[in-house]
């Protein structure tokens, strides 16, 4: 019978929040909806931009193409038209959009491969592939040929390397910016971060500053409950809301991302492993906890919902900048210490997962850092609630 006041308070808070249809909508459902709509719109838009005609034949220029390669192509049945050429012409044609791909083999490739001893440690025979990312046909050809080689290489027990020596971007002969993919890449984490922020914004100020403003917090302060329990109940119930919002965000991402990544050629594939999905979920949840805790503290400082919203709105800019930062850095940063920066870390971890170069360490640092930050803010909030200036300033 003597249930702790914390339990009673959480029950009341949840009844309150979930009983308010407006809050459930703007705090949980809206995020998923926003994300889904934005992704679908963007997906359609980009789908138009990046699809290859079904009966298109890819124009591939090759230098020193060995017999085995021509055979490989004809065996695969891929619509590829191979032209033997010199390096300069091939390069120029790809850059000028007259050809889709330029492949350069080490001279006498087949016999080199046959004679190559893996154990020798000497340089393996080389294949270099250049594409032009401004054209979807070129990107498509690039991934097609690379897949082909991968198959081929596997069958040959790794006797040559593809594009081993250079940064992948240097093989992009497009002189303009690879707009579509960097735009998409930087937009996704940003959108996720922003919709989750907006979800928390719908609840935390209302639940904390709103109760102060309406004087309903005071009636709870005169019960024997510990002030810290009142604070904890607030933040825990808002967290429950926030986590549900994150799950909805995650769910809508799962539903709408495949629409966006209509093609594999822009560098993304949408066949992630279960553990990658779990990482995305973990990241969204740990991010939302930071928002909940941060906005709760801000809301406790404010005297009214309006004031809380005003205080919190500059933060959306910070969220946006963090979200877009992966565009500036050209993908996820790899140095682990960057992942100690909350929110920034979320954006880069998500980018990392989407582009396939996430590290488990960085994701773990992100989740732990964000959870720790949320806990610190929670502690701050419980301290704040014991101050009469914060909870009862009339």
């Amino acid at each position, binding site marked *: 019978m003597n249930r702790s006041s914390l339990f009673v308070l959480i029950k*009341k808070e949840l009844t309150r929040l979930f009983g308010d249809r407006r809050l459930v909508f703007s705090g949980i459902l809206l995020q998923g909806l926003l994300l889904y709509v934005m992704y679908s719109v963007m997906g359609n838009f980009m789908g138009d931009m990046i699809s290859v005609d079904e009966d298109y034949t890819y124009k591939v220029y090759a230098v020193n193409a060995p017999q085995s390669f021509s055979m490989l192509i004809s065996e695969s049945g891929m619509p590829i038209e191979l032209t033997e050429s010199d390096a300069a012409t091939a390069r120029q044609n790809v850059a000028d959009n007259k050809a889709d791909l330029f492949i350069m083999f080490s001279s006498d490739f087949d016999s080199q491969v046959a004679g190559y001893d893996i154990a020798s440690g000497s340089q393996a025979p080389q294949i270099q592939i250049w594409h032009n990312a401004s054209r979807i046909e070129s990107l498509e050809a690039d991934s097609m040929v690379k897949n082909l080689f991968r198959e081929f290489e596997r069958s040959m027990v790794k006797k040559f390397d593809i594009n081993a020596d250079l940064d992948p971007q240097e093989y992009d002969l497009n002189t303009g910016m690879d707009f579509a993919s960097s735009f998409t890449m930087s937009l996704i984490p940003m959108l996720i971060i922003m919709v989750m922020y907006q979800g928390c914004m719908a609840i935390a100020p209302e639940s904390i500053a709103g*109760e102060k403003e*309406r004087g*309903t917090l005071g*009636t709870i302060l005169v*019960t024997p409950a510990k002030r810290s329990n009142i604070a904890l109940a607030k933040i825990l119930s808002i967290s429950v809301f926030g986590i549900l919002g994150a799950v909805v965000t995650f769910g809508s991402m799962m539903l709408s991302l495949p629409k966006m990544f209509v093609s594999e050629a822009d560098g993304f594939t949408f066949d992630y492993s279960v553990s990658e999905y779990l990482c995305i979920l973990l990241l969204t949840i740990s991010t939302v906890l930071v928002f909940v805790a941060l906005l709760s503290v801000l809301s406790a400082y404010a005297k009214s919902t309006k004031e809380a919203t005003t205080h919190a709105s500059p933060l959306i800019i910070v969220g946006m900048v963090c979200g877009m930062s992966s565009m500036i850095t050209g993908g996820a940063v790899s140095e682990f210490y960057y992942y100690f920066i909350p929110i920034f870390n979320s954006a880069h971890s998500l980018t990392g997962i989407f582009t396939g170069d996430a590290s488990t360490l960085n994701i773990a640092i992100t989740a732990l850092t964000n959870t720790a930050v949320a806990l610190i803010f929670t502690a701050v909030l419980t301290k704040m609630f014991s101050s*009469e200036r914060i909870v009862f300033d009339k």
Partner: protein
Amino acid sequence: MQEILSVSNLTKTFKVSKKQQKLRNLNKSVITAANDVSFTSYKGEVFGLLGPNGAGKTTVMRMLATLINPDSGDAMVGGKSIVQNSREVRSSIGFLTNELKLDDFFTPNYTFDFFAEMHRIPKQTAKQRKQELFGKFGIDKFAEVKISNLSQGMRQKFSLVTSIVHNPDMIIFDEPTNGLDVITAKVVTDFLIELKKEGKSIILSTHIFELVEKLCDRIGIIIDGRMVACGTVDEVSGGRPFEEAFFDIYSKTTGEVV
């Protein structure tokens, strides 16, 4: 006579923002809302706090209810210090004031159960008490109506009910009839009399002299944060009608002629 409340030297100051100073035409940045206030109240008595607007009545009551902490001084409620044992104090008092609002979103039924749980009242006891109080104030008909849809009078009656869910020994009422129509005001006043008969101790602030004469055993007059007169109603009024005595004290203290 058994002491239930002994207030000693309670002092509370508030910082006033520059904006507030301008707005209220003050030239100081600190307001002493309660200045060395002391008084004693006994079990089963009604103690009335009187004073003009802004005198510090609400401030004193908030300190007793442990909503705010005194800068110095202390008060013992049933032997418990409001500073040291604030949670025990809170479970033995009821506090009713205009500024504390019930959440519009819930029904009286839910709200009552919530406060009963907060006070850790056994379910059965709470149920009985709810029936009794809801019946007395006619809330039973509205038990499942959202508070936002209750009339002002019904809300005030329900606020009164929630402040005594846990059957506290001492009840602090800050202007309990403020803003009520005469009918509802009478219901509330009658209930105060009933509580007194039950042996509850009541601390009451009011601007209504009639209420003072009808209810209070002992009064304290606060002006500008100071307790300027304190004692039984007879002691303070010195045989005169209470209203006359009050204005006299006010004029003497402030130098203003009313």
